[in-house]
């Protein structure tokens, strides 16, 4: 076992190793939702899921490991305490991870056999005399120095704190945490007060010293020391990724290239320019970013909300500036602090040996972002993904937290296919498989989409019985997918009972023939009735993640808000089956729960009406040419595919999925909410980060 502990197997070690082999705690990559959708009953195989890699001893990988998750997987593995093992199900490359200790095919039987192997490996190999460190480029940390009192003071060399004079202490930080100092792209578009973000931590504070010493303007030496290693490497695609060493980008895996340091420093340079400008000609009027009606001649705080006033002229000037949005927040902050300290210089009691403003509350809080209630607080950026137990796996979510409230979000998908079409996927059958692989959470809907588009391009049509049976397959998947969402909601809300029941039903229904589905119908009804009657459930979900009806909402999220939008209503076969669009009111998390429960019933009825299930397969494409376009209502919303067929080969394809709309909704649902509520809201969207093509 590669993740063994250093040591020899004596009596005691044998005993604990035997115990560990019977206490398997798994951390699943990409996540439990994908495992369920693949039909794995992890609990049934004796694998207890762990919410954090810290409490796991087995990293369960559902292979192939998506390229976008390779680095995150190596971080999770690196953070597991030894002895640690890897269990890989399915075939494919494990990227930077060491070889798996047990492998098996991606089936329940494969899992059970692999678990047996794994138990044996752990029982016999948990302690070894020759153990090597696990090293991956993403795990590199660098040494830096920080002040025990002012954690925002960080520099590369030992020395004293510019704020309080204490000796800086050594600590280690992730190389990639550097990226955190640069502004993630998403946040540039945010309103002023949410944009200020954690970035204020390092640089602006360092500037404080200069300001205090009466405009000596030794600008941001601390920050500069940090951000000027001799050569820097950056990602050609993600300029915010900066590393002191060559390697690959943690976001997209591309090789880093030596950075043009100028561009990285542009933000700071801009600020310098502005600070000087501030010193030369101070702007005459100040206004509140939140209350434009507040305008006064002197700097200070807004009488309405307490925020620091910003100079009027500068705001105008800055809007035309290259780095406008990103640097504005900083400039305002540092400049007003500059002004402020000049103003207060006169009345300071100077005590020898102690720097003026030492531990002064006004000074300590000067550059901090102000919360909505006007209190000056420090905000932190916390990653919630890509392997967060309460969120869809593969969703990379970074929350800026003001206490336990969300002050800013940045979300994107870490997974998805790099390209829909390549040489191997031009034949119709391979193309259908490729689309199915696009979404591990709802492969049938995407296969159906591909089939419909292909058949339209080839001007073929399938017999009505086949078309109906295909629809039944899609509806079975909707049913299964909604149960998967219920299980995920159970995990997130600590509602273990629901998690267990919904998982069991999802696993049973996934491949069940019609007769079995009919037999399970009473159980389904019982579960859904029980959910409606659960105490505390309404209080948990009511009013959370409310979305007003508008055009951008996809699928069940729109229908839960009362918008009768459903691609199925345009389909004659559905009309024939008596389908009507189901909607709920309110558009909050509770309505989404009700809506999905309703859709489960509806799908159940449709399946029983059709009475047969057939997986979609392309039908009579031959060597036809043409273009086709199809829309399918996937469990998460309408997906649209258009393709060009040339001599029986797919030559071009373009797909629109609901994922992008979901990602855009995250900020609306989360901003300003308490952390738990924000996560509930994001979870209630039931997004799938998989259905994107980079």
């Amino acid at each position: 076992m590669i993740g063994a502990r250093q040591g020899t197997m004596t009596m005691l070690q044998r005993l604990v190793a035997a115990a560990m082999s019977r206490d398997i705690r798994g951390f699943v990559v990409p996540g439990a939702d994908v495992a369920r959708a693949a039909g794995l009953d992890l609990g049934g195989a004796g694998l207890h899921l762990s919410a954090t890699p810290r409490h796991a001893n087995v990293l369960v990988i559902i292979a192939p490991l998506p390229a976008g998750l390779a680095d995150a997987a190596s971080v999770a593995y690196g953070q597991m305490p030894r002895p640690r093992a890897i269990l890989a199900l399915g075939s494919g490359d494990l990227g930077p991870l060491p070889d798996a200790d047990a492998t098996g095919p991606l089936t329940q039987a494969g899992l059970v056999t692999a678990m047996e192997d794994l138990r044996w490996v752990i029982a016999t190999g948990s302690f070894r005399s020759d153990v090597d460190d696990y090293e991956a480029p993403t795990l590199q940390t660098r040494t830096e120095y920080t002040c025990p009192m002012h954690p925002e003071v960080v520099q590369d060399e030992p020395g004293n704190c510019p704020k309080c004079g204490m000796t800086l202490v050594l600590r280690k930080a992730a190389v990639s945490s550097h990226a955190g100092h640069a502004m993630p792209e998403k946040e540039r578009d945010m309103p002023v007060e949410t944009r200020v973000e954690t970035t204020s931590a390092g640089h602006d504070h360092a500037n404080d010293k200069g300001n205090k010493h009466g405009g000596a303007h030794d600008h941001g030496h601390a920050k500069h020391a940090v951000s000027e290693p001799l050569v820097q490497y950056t990602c050609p695609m993600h300029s915010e990724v900066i590393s002191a060493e060559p390697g690959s980008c943690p976001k997209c895996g591309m090789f880093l290239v030596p950075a043009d340091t100028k561009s990285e420093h542009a933000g700071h340079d801009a600020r310098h320019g502005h600070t000087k400008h501030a010193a030369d000609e101070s702007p005459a009027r100040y206004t509140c970013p939140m209350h434009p009606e507040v305008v006064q001649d002197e700097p200070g705080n807004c009488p309405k909300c307490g925020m620091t006033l910003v100079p009027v002229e500068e705001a105008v000037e800055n809007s035309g500036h290259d780095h406008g949005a990103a640097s504005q927040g900083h400039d305002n902050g540092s400049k007003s602090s500059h002004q402020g300290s000049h103003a207060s210089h006169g009345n300071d009691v100077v005590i020898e040996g102690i720097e003026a403003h030492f531990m002064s509350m006004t000074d300590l809080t000067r550059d901090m972002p102000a919360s909505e209630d006007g209190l000056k607080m420090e905000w932190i950026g916390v990653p919630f993904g890509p392997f967060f137990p309460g969120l869809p796996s593969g969703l990379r979510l970074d929350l800026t937290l003001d206490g336990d409230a969300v002050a800013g979000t940045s979300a994107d998908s870490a997974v998805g296919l790099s390209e829909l079409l390549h040489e191997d996927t031009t034949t119709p059958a391979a193309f259908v498989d490729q689309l199915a692989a696009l979404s591990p959470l709802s492969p049938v809907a995407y296969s159906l989409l591909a089939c419909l588009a292909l058949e339209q391009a080839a001007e073929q049509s399938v017999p009505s019985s086949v078309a109906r049976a295909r629809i039944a397959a899609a509806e079975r998947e909707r049913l299964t997918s909604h149960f998967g969402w219920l299980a995920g909601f159970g995990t997130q809300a600590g509602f273990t009972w629901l998690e267990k029941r919904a998982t069991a039903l999802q696993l049973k229904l996934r491949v069940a023939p019609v007769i079995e589905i009919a037999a399970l119908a009473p159980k389904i009804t019982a579960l859904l009735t029980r959910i409606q009657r659960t105490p505390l459930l309404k209080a948990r979900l009511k009013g959370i993640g409310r979305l007003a009806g508008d055009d951008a909402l996809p699928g069940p999220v729109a229908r839960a808000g009362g918008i009768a939008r459903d691609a199925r209503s345009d389909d004659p076969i559905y009309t024939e089956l008596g389908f009507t669009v189901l909607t709920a009111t309110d558009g909050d998390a509770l309505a989404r729960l009700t809506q999905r429960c309703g859709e489960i019933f509806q799908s159940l009825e449709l399946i029983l009406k059709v009475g047969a299930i057939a997986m979609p397969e392309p039908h009579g494409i031959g060597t036809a040419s043409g273009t086709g376009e199809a829309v399918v209502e996937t469990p998460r919303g309408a997906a649209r595919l258009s393709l060009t067929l040339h001599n029986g080969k797919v030559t071009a394809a373009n797909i629109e999925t609901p994922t992008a709309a979901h990602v855009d909704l995250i900020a609306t649902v989360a901003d300003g909410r308490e952390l738990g509520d924000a996560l509930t809201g994001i979870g209630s969207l039931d997004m799938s980060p998989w259905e994107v093509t980079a």
Partner: protein
Amino acid sequence: MTILIVLLSLAVGAYLIAVLESWAVHGRLQPARPAISALALLGRESLLARTPDRLLFETGPVLLLVAGLLAVAVIPLAPGLIITDMATGALFLNAALAYVLVALIMAGWGPNGAYGMIGGWRFLGQFVAYAMLIVMPITAVVLRAESLSTVDIVTSQSSLWNIAYQPLGFALFVAAAMGLCWLPPLDLPTAPGDLAGGVEAEYTGVRFAVLRLARMVIILALAGATVTFYLGGWLGPWLPDWAWSGIKILIVAGLMVSAGRLVPRVRETRYLELSWKLGIPLALGNIFLVGVIVLVVPI
């Protein structure tokens, strides 16, 4: 001798509760599970975060265990079977359990991890919600017993258990006790789906084992307190005294650890609102009501 017996029964009780909890979580009754898990935890590495507050990080689990043990010290299992029958028992219980808050905040703050820190501060909010609902119902119990000694409190219920005498106080106390043990649906500081482990997240190996043990002791202490204050302690027919205490404590603890899986986690905002807008007025009313009954009906 008494002390050893109490500590031994505490160990047995903690083990049984751990079995019950794993049953509630995994859905299978495996009597050997806690022993296996504990051994396995001993065999895993116990990691230390890169820039921790070492003192707080190490103190957290130990303080939690000490707080739990001190609370257990004033729980009577039978006449004479109590570690210390203090004259201020009920107050001491309260004081000991106040350290649960301190220990959890220490554990959350210590490792310098975001999830843990948020979990710790969340627990402070939870404390603000439950603390009054521990103190006020106990006051009403003391009102009837005319003593803070836990032994006297049990004997005061010989004619009628407090669960019937002051049912309102019982309901409030149990709801608060669940919050104090951060059991689901009030597991806000450790919430696996919300905070991926929260305050527990950075504890691994043997330190995590101590944390879990301390948690079990605290659950037992709270179940013991509930039994002492409301369910007549060791009182009961036919069986020996200690057996009654044991049975009652295990049933209460079992219900506490398993009830939460049937409902979703309560939002912190909601818990605070409920306890201050509903719980505290009710608890004050309970004190007043019990005060009147004590004067009017002499039982």
